[in-house]
């Protein structure tokens, strides 16, 4: 708080810089508010009792004297100077002629900002002054370290192993394919069979009588179909004639003599 008595024109870091390097002086401030705060501190009163008017004068004087400062760096400072000059003129005018914004309000706002920045500056100093690890207090130089080893415990059971083996064997065993011999009567064998049986008699015979007597139902179905087609074929060749009383009635077949027309 009580900074040593330096010429207030210079920020602490560049206190010994000569006048030619005035533009460098601004490098030491963290912006216009920082400069204002430092100037305010030099009034050596509580920030709440600070004279804004005096502060404005000090700031403007400083900026005037730092006329050679680098413009890009100085822009913020110049904006602040213009604003403060406006504030000063507003404050000097009689109260009755005040318009919005009220200069007292503006001054208060500036004061509040300075208080807040000042509070943080001081807090930062106290924070940095604490017992810091690696500077004031030290941690154990060579800690052994804690380690958690993750260990996987594998689990399985006998059934899974046996089942897996069964599946491997089944998957990789040579596979044998059986083509089932389906019970059918081919057209050729039906033709042969029907022709042979027709040769026995000239009487009408029911087609069912041509079927093999002890065949399985599946073979019977096949034989019926084949025998029917064989009968049609024989009729076409003029060797037999067919007869049926009606739909789904028994189908009869009879041999034709050689040369006899159907």
């Amino acid at each position, binding site marked *: 708080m009580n900074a040593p008595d330096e010429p207030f024109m210079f920020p602490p870091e560049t206190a010994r810089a000569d006048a030619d390097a005035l533009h460098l002086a601004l490098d030491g401030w*963290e*912006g*216009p*508010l*920082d400069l204002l705060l430092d100037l305010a501190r030099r009034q050596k009163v509580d920030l*709440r009792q600070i004279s804004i008017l005096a502060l404005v004068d000090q700031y403007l004087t400083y900026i005037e004297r730092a006329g050679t400062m680098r413009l890009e760096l100085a822009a*913020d400072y110049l904006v602040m100077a213009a604003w403060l000059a406006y504030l000063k003129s507003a404050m000097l005018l009689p109260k009755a002629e005040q318009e919005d914004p009220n200069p*007292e*309000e503006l001054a*208060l*706002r500036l*004061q*509040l*900002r300075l*208080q*807040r*920045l000042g*509070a*943080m*500056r*001081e*807090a*930062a*100093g*106290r*924070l*940095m002054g*604490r*017992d*810091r*690890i*690696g*500077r*004031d*207090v*030290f*941690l*154990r130089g060579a*800690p*052994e*370290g*804690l380690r*958690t080893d993750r260990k996987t415990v594998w689990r399985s059971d006998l059934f899974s192993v046996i089942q897996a083996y069964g599946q491997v064997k089944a998957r990789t065993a040579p596979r044998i394919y059986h083509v089932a011999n389906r019970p059918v009567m081919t057209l050729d064998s039906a033709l042969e069979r029907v022709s042979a049986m027709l040769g026995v008699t000239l009487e009408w015979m029911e087609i069912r009588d041509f079927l093999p007597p002890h065949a399985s139902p599946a073979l019977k179905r096949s034989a019926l179909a084949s025998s029917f087609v064989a009968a049609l074929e024989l009729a076409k060749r003029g060797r037999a004639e067919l007869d049926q009383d009606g739909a789904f009635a028994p189908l009869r077949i009879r041999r034709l003599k050689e040369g006899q027309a159907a």
Partner: protein
Amino acid sequence: MSDEGQPEPGTLERAVEATLFAAEEPLGVEALCAHLGGLALADVREALALLEARYRNRGVHLVERGGRWHFETAPDLAHLLRREKEQVRRLSRAATEVLAIIAYHEPVSRAEIESIRGVQTSAGTLDVLMEAGWVKPAGRREVPGRPVIYATTPTFLDHFGLASRRDLPGIDELRAAGLLDPVDEAMEAHMRFEPDDESDPQSDGQDDGQDDENLAD
């Protein structure tokens, strides 16, 4: 403690002592419990309290920082140890201020930091603080633009020897004085009463109320 001086340390106390000595970073009560095989929190807390007392006058202290515990050398012996140790890297003034603002106001956006400092914060400043592990992004503020907000880390508390943010130097006074409130809020409070009188106790009281609300966030 008994008349006969310090009693023999119990098994749990020894286990906690050994674990914290060996640990490479501070451990919270829960981490300790887990490491020691799922003990009751209360037992571990008791052991920590015993150990803390036992080491209070020693060259090494057991300290709690942000809910995590570690051993460190006693601060009064700093002069003995410092000479061989590397100095902590000096922070720039800007970084120091930004760190203080984040610590006292957290969570806080970059724009809020800048409005307090009255100057733009260079990108490098926040980076330095994040690299040191003292500051981290803590989400976004739900206002237009959704700015990133920043907060301090447990490492920050460790490094500066703070048990919690409540231990930040002067934080209670600053809060009571309304100095952690935004200027706009303070202006309103001032204007509502006597604009000219900054020392109005009522306006101070008002500030307090608002601060508590902030804390409860």
